[in-house]
């Protein structure tokens, strides 16, 4: 048996922006280094209400001498995340992961574009960190389009600043950066990027991904991380289905948890 449910200890859990929390969890060293885009299922040890575990993207990973640490950046949207937000230092959580066969793949292109909307920054920040180490042809080759509703809910900027030379911040109300949707800002620059030499990665609300889908033809390499309600997180319940094209171009339902959460944008079907 290669996988386990790990007991993690919360070492930090604080509200970094209104309704946005950053949780740091210490895990046994057996926890495998996640690939960007992978996630964990988290629940409070011994608590059965809320019933289901919550899927959260991995924001960062660090391996220490006798244990490892992950960070989870999350937004409180319902009962489960609100209870998680109430955990104090020293609380125990059950974590399984890293989960998801579909993760971001390392590009071999001159341009690397990351587009995040709101909490979508979480998996892309880990991706930026990894690309910085492995694939990036200098800090300036990577461009990060970061969107939020307003300055007070803009998260993760300091973190991506470390990895990325070009950061374009957009807010709906103009309270930080450009007053525009992040997809608009990206569209303005689109002609600069040669499809054959550009890799695009995106995570954000469904309408944002949808706009990208309309904007980018199949000639672009674009991977997106999708969200869906989940029960098991390992592919057994088939609850987190998303409509995508199979190899023959036929519609099929894939599991966000096991087949994703990262998919090729050109395969996603909008119903």
């Amino acid at each position, binding site marked *: 048996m290669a*996988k386990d449910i790990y007991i993690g200890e919360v070492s930090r859990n604080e509200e970094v922006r209104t309704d946005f929390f950053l949780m740091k969890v210490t895990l046994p060293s057996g926890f495998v280094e996640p690939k960007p885009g992978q996630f964990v299922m988290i629940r409070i040890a011994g608590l059965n209400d809320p*019933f289901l575990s919550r899927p959260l993207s991995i924001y960062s990973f660090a391996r220490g001498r006798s244990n490892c640490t992950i960070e989870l950046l999350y937004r409180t949207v319902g009962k489960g995340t609100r209870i998680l937000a109430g955990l104090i230092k020293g609380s125990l959580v059950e974590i399984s992961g890293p989960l998801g066969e579909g993760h971001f793949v390392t590009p071999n292109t001159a341009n690397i574009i990351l587009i995040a909307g709101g909490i979508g920054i979480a998996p892309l920040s880990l991706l930026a960190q990894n690309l910085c180490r492995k694939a990036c042809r200098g800090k300036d080759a990577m461009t990060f389009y970061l969107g939020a509703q307003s300055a007070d809910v803009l998260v993760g900027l300091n973190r991506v600043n470390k990895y990325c030379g070009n950061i374009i911040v957009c807010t709906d109300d103009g309270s930080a950066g450009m007053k525009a949707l992040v997809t608009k800002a990206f569209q303005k620059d689109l002609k600069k990027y040669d499809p054959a030499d550009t890799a695009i990665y995106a995570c954000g609300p469904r309408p944002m991904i949808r706009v990208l889908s309309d904007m980018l033809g199949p000639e672009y390499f674009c991977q997106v991380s999708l969200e869906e309600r989940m029960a*098991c997180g390992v592919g*057994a*319940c*088939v609850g987190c*289905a998303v409509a995508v094209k199979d190899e023959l171009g036929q519609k*099929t*339902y894939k599991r966000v948890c096991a087949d994703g959460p990262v998919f090729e944008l050109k395969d996603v079907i909008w119903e």
Partner: protein
Amino acid sequence: MFQEGQGYFQLKSEEKKDQAMVVEIAGLKLKNPVMTASGTFGYGEEYSDYVDLNLLGGIVVKGLSLKPRPGNPPPRIMETSGGMLNAVGLQNVGVDVFIADKLPFLRRYNVAVIANIYGESYQEYAQVASKLSRAEGVHALEINVSCPNVKRGGLSFGSDPRAAAEVTRRVKAETHLPVIVKLTPNVTDIASIALSVENAGADAVSLINTITGMSIDLSTRTPHLKNITGGLSGPSIKPVALRMVWQVAQKVSIPVIGIGGIMTAEDALEFMIAGAKAVQIGTASFINPCASVEVIDGIRHYMHENKIKNIADIVGTLQT
């Protein structure tokens, strides 16, 4: 129809000491009375990294149909108080792909494999049963006449005693394997359905499948599930399931398999005292992949503490 010796389990020497846990369901010997329920454990492979499948009494695989089924459009699930609703709609690879691609994996384990089958017509149930009976490594069939999330077949067969009996007869005619009929709670009198399938030749009944329910998003006034309704499962349905198992166990003479919200060994033992010869662990696996193994350990511990020599000794011992 059942041939003596078929589907028998080879207990390894280290398992011999656990003879006290062995149960027999319609001639099929299980190492212990704990199986994983259909639709909650995939095809076994999904959880094989977490659980040693050899420890399980049996694995009931996700419902299989004649042709692959795409399933229902999302959203398919919604959490509820103490449980969840699902309207997956029997998404599955189809019986042929199961036999070719999924069954070989399961054959590597020393565990009873029970294939849950679904059809849109009597004919389809019979065809799926026939294919599986010829496959190596399937030890029993469980007929799904109780899925609430499909338009044709499923529940419509399970809520009519005559239709349920006819499905049972058609499947029995195609197979030498033990046939379990999985019953729906979405009926007025579950015991009468159970009696009807017993008379039609069912070797065992398993119950309950999910209870039809729904949930509404206040901000949009739309159902949380695209299918509008879904099947409720999880600990919140346990009292209903327990009551139905008790009612059915008093009426039928074939083995009853208890399902519904079992999270712990204590839950499983309640079902056995109510008359279930074995149990299935369903939704619990979603939040704890090791739930089934923990239930097995817990039952063993209970037997030791209470000096129970054989698990069969507690079945149907409810004092009223």
